[in-house]
């Protein structure tokens, strides 16, 4: 892999070709906030919190750093008035779902996000997809998936698979930034206790 030299927030950073800007920044100790990112999983680009500004061949644009790849002489800014404004809005939109999620609360403090800006929504899920992707990509079980689309999109355990695959795994539980996943699982368990030796 070729070495690449780029600038992040004014600092010269070395990276390998094919790396994402987020990976290069993390390696250099520069923090970019994320919610749907996981180093073991394919880049997802769902939460858009890791948005940064890049300058390439005279063009400036906003990209998400978990997907955008490094390139020689790339100039990256991880904070700006606009970036902070967008991150604050994204956090406020998500706080309508999970106002007490510790990760969101921490980021909200950093970006001055108001947890009460929008009316509370009925679902805690922020659709980061960590559980769905972990189960599919790492465990290859597909016990939890997305259902519906648009504003109705939500995660759901597939009871027939969950009853077999989940009871001694539950590796997705700690990944969930809100407490929705466990609630969904418990609900599935309650409706579908068959196959679960403890239930």
């Amino acid at each position, binding site marked *: 892999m070729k070495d690449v030299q780029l600038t992040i927030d004014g600092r010269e950073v070395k990276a390998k070709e094919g790396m994402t800007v987020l990976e290069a920044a993390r390696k250099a100790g520069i923090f970019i906030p994320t919610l749907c990112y996981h180093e073991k999983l394919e*880049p*997802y*680009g*769902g*939460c*858009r*919190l890791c*948005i940064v500004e890049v300058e390439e061949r005279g063009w400036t644009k*906003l*990209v*998400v750093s978990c*997907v*955008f*790849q490094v390139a020689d002489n790339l100039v990256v800014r991880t904070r700006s008035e*606009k970036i902070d*404004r*967008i991150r604050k*809005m*994204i956090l406020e*939109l*998500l706080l*309508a779902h999970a106002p007490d999620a510790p990760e969101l609360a921490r980021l909200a403090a950093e970006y001055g996000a108001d947890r009460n800006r*929008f*009316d509370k*929504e009925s679902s805690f899920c*922020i*659709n980061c*997809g960590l559980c769905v992707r972990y189960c599919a990509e790492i465990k290859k079980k597909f016990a939890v998936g*997305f259902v*519906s*689309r*648009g*504003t*109705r*999109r939500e995660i759901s355990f597939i009871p027939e698979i969950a009853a077999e695959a989940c009871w001694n795994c539950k590796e997705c539980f700690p990944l969930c930034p809100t407490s929705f996943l466990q609630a969904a699982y418990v609900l599935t368990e309650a409706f579908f206790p068959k196959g679960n030796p403890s239930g």
Partner: protein
Amino acid sequence: MAKINSPAELEAFRKDLVAKRDPTKPLISVCCGSACLASGSGEVAAVLEEEIKKQGLSDKVELKKTGCHGFCERGPLMVLRPEEVAYFHIEPKDVSEILSQTVKEKKVLDHLVYADPAAKEKVVHEGEIPFYKYQERIVFGSNGIIDPKNIEDYIALGGYRALAKVLFEMTPEQVLEEVKKSNLRGRGGGGFPTGRKWEESRKVQSDIKYVIVNADEGDPGAYMDRSLLEGNPHLVLEGLIIGAYTVGAREGFIYVRQEYPLAVENVNVALRQAEEYGFLGENILGSRFSFTVKVHQGAGAFVSGESSALMTAIEGKVGEPRPKYIHTAVKGVWDRPSVLNNVETWANVPLIINNGADWFTRLGTEKSKGTKIFSLVGKINNTGLVEVPMGMTLRDIIYKIGGGIRGGKRFKAVQTGGPSGGCIPESLLDLPVGFDELTKAGSMMGSGGMIVMDEDTCMVDVARYFLDFLTEESCGKCVPCREGIRQMLKILTNITKGKGKEGDIELLEQLAETACEASLCALGKTAPNPFLSTLKYFRDEYEAHIKEKRCPALSCKDLIAYYINPEKCQACMTCFKNCPAQAIIGGKNLIHIVDQEKCTKCGTCFEVCPPRFRAVEKISGKPVPPPLPEEARVITRKSKEK
């Protein structure tokens, strides 16, 4: 049918077809496009077939069931050739007379021809009807003379000649140069230069490449791709094969939405026939070029029309856009270079090859060449599909072709570009249509939806409608789009219900910024456009809703009241009898009043009140005047006094 094996064979076959056809023989083209079928053209065609036999005309007249002619508002319709007599609003009972009078006796039936409301005269011939006269139907024109299920109709018109030319007289580089020179831009929405997309894909070294037709048309009210695919599938297919040859693809897909059964059917028939005649498969027309096409039926949401989402759907996954920063022309379906163009874009390709780029660029503006098909719908007299040269003004499209606003109402705005587009106000009616012109005005060309709105349309409600559409049609993957649309819709709904508050506009603007800047795909990035453009041109309407709780268009139910003006009411009992909620108080000779508690604001009283009285009024932003006491409401009629 044996495969056609060379350009010479194709030309000989075409000449043979033309020679067998008698141009003076009466030909009836009945529109059997989806819109006309819905208004009963299938039955008309069936009766016609039967009646032709019954009247012993089988050898003397030919019947052709064609795709959409465009003038859908007047369907079922037909054109009788060679005279080009156009008949509209045909019913099965008219058929026998059409045959006995027009076909046999060459007499025109007055009640079936087009009556021009402006000139107050009848127009007999298709080409003279204003709706058709001002169009430039280079792509759509053949629809009216082709039986889409018969490849020979297409060949007789010179079909697949461009393919023969490309395969035997041109190198892929030359084709690419010609397409680049034509300045053809994507008709699906963005207007990306087609030649540049092809070039990008052509440059990539890959043993497998794909070319794809995007027929996942989804804008509300738009159906031009549907009609083109239903009515002239070979034109699109020929364009696709030429594109495949140019970029070096051996496989192609036609991604057509499942909701278009006739398009799916006609495309499948076209593919079978094209293969049988030697235009698809191994060694096309005896050349060394081979190419096959598969039809992929899309069952997904609006978002599946987005290029990367469409490609993930072809791969058999959920139709969601990819978060990659690499063009699908380089890495598309299964990470192979994939050129995706809209139906109409592909359909333009054979025309450019046959007639040359210079012929194509004579039409249009500096940066938008050729024509564009629009589906002209809404509060307009002549609803239908129109093909106009780029650069025609919105005013000409709406008034000359569209015949102006229905019911003598006042024009308010025209919405172009579907949920990604915006509303253009009266002050910009002289805007020439073109990709950059429409974008500059805060809207976009989009795939060609053109919804005309009159004074009764509330612009806040229009913005609300499109966001409501997107809550279901977005994939919901990224936060700025999914959550942004959710909140924008909530705020807009509140405003239309009279629950808007100070700061709503600013909050909407901030949500719009996040969606535009941070969304994953073009759907989210453009989702706020209906809001932004209506705010730009109709800010006063937003403010009236929020500050005065008034809907200036008198359209938002929660902000209006129906009121019977006691000065005008003649106690005729019409509204009293028709009100479904029994909310009219009154009686014979007793002036009516609306019981505001019971009124459901359905508007029936407003509609049924005789025009000579016009006593029912809509009120918004001010209290309803208190009703007169009963004794003051008694009408003593003079005629009864005697």
